[in-house]
């Protein structure tokens, strides 16, 4: 780790000595998941890997409690960003986007993930072409939005010198904030109408996929560590949602049982004592 640091420091000083104009955007992203990802999550990861040529995929991380290993791991692979997919209970997926080694890191909950395998998304693009990044204005309105935008620019923007990057731009990744969530879409850019190849160039888009929604949960100051600098008050854990639903169901059952018991008790109360005028005695 120290070696990597020294190297980077050396680079920085070099860059400073070289004078400004040769500055480049250098990004490499380490992508890995925790154990217990389902096929859908795995496919989502492989889709992102196909789209982002500067991603290095690592094998699954064994332990969910040892996230402090991640910055080291990233350093070993010469990566300065990390995307960590954390699967919980085989159904919930959390995404950590972090800048290693010094942070910050954002923890998000992944919702409504659709992969590229779905036949509804008919677009296609070059493997490894640099995608455009589009952010809507809402990112610039809040401080956490600005932070997220910066981080996503590093992680999802393909640097021009990525080894497997291809020239030409044929797709666009769009990030929008709606309902306090970040919506991700990926479109292919068609510059000509496929039915009239010689007609006037009119831009249109076709969705390639994947698509997903991210709910930001917390932003930490360090990489997978550090103080919380932002937390989303609206976030409710999916486990809490599920338990609430179960409770509601349980309530229904309980209410029914209560009602049954009550009716039995009422019947008991209304029963009349055996007396001389009771029906079986009169009509015996």
């Amino acid at each position, binding site marked *: 780790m120290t070696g990597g640091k020294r190297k980077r420091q050396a680079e920085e000083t070099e860059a400073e000595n070289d004078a400004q104009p040769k500055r480049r955007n250098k990004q490499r992203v380490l992508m890995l998941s925790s154990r217990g990802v389902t096929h859908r999550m795995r496919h989502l990861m492989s889709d992102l890997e196909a789209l982002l040529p500067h991603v290095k995929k690592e094998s699954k991380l064994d332990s969910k409690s040892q996230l402090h290993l991640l910055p080291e791991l990233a350093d070993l692979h010469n990566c300065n960003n990390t995307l960590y997919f954390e699967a919980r209970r085989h159904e919930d997926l959390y995404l950590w986007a972090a800048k290693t080694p010094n942070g910050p890191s954002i923890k998000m909950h992944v919702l409504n993930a659709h992969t590229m395998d779905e036949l509804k998304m008919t677009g296609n693009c070059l493997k490894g072409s640099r995608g455009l990044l589009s952010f809507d204005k809402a990112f610039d309105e809040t401080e956490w939005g*600005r932070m997220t935008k910066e981080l996503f620019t590093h992680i999802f923007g393909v640097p021009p010198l990525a080894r497997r990057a291809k020239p030409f731009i044929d797709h666009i990744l769009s990030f929008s904030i*709606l309902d306090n969530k970040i919506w991700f879409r990926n479109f292919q850019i068609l510059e000509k109408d496929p039915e009239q190849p010689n007609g006037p160039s009119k*831009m249109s888009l076709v969705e390639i996929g994947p698509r997903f929604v991210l709910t930001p949960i917390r932003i930490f100051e360090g990489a997978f560590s550090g103080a919380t600098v932002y937390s989303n008050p609206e976030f409710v854990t999916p486990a809490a949602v599920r338990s609430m639903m179960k409770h509601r169901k349980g309530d229904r059952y309980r209410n029914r049982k209560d009602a049954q018991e009550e009716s039995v008790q009422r019947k008991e109360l209304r029963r009349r004592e055996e007396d001389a005028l009771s029906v079986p005695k009169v009509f015996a």
Partner: protein
Amino acid sequence: MPKFPPERANADESSSEEDEFSELSGDEQEVIALDDVEDDVVGEDVIPKQKVEIDNTDALRRIRETIQLDPSLPWTETLVVTYPETIEVDVNDDLNRELAFYKQALHSAERARTLAAKHSLPFTRPSDYFAEMVKSDAHMERIRIKLLDERAGIKKAEEKRKEREAKKFGKQVQIEKQKERERSKKEMTERLKSLKRKRKGALENAEADGEEFDVTVEEAIGDERSSKRPKKEGGGKKMSRGTRDAKYGFGGKGRRSKQNTRSSTDSFVSGGNKKGKGKGAVNKRPGKSKRQAMKNRRS
């Protein structure tokens, strides 16, 4: 659940990392402690837990500034485009929501194209540039087939719908058809009558050239029949359920319908065999050999 508590991470970190935000983390711990106390006092079922919101904008800004890319970098390094509008649609309205995203992406793509032209960055892929794509050819073929299937399905549904609508007027059509049939029948008899009238003069030797007469009749009716026939033969259309039931029978009369009942035993009226009785009466024309013999006798 092996949840990773950020507070613990916080404790880990504050000892080792920068002390810039030490007052910040202390602050946060205080807040959380307060929250815990509140929980203990109030109890679970009275008030739902109020989450502590942390939004330390100063720290966020400072951190962002430390990681920020050099603003002097040319646009081609990042390819980031900002859409100048926020997206304000109903989240649950899928169509409008996706449309808004599409608009954002389209606007950004167009903007990027002009920017790329300005920075002389190659944007459009030439048509002869082939390379590996994100989706394989096999996958694209599956997509294509699915699209075709979908289109066929839509067409089929459309046809079905039309048919249904046509059925609404079916009754009218049926009445029309019956009228048409009657009219054609009338016409036919008219024609035959006129033919007979024409031939009346030659009625004396009508028997002689009977066959010839037949031929003319055939000719007179001919066009009528020939126009009718193909419709019946090629008719892919089924008879209606009611017609089919009437023709082929449906259900039957029940199990004991052929058993004798008291009334049937008492009555001595025989059902009688009607077959073959009417035949002679209907066909007045003698058979061929007889006709031949008649002809020979006359001559």
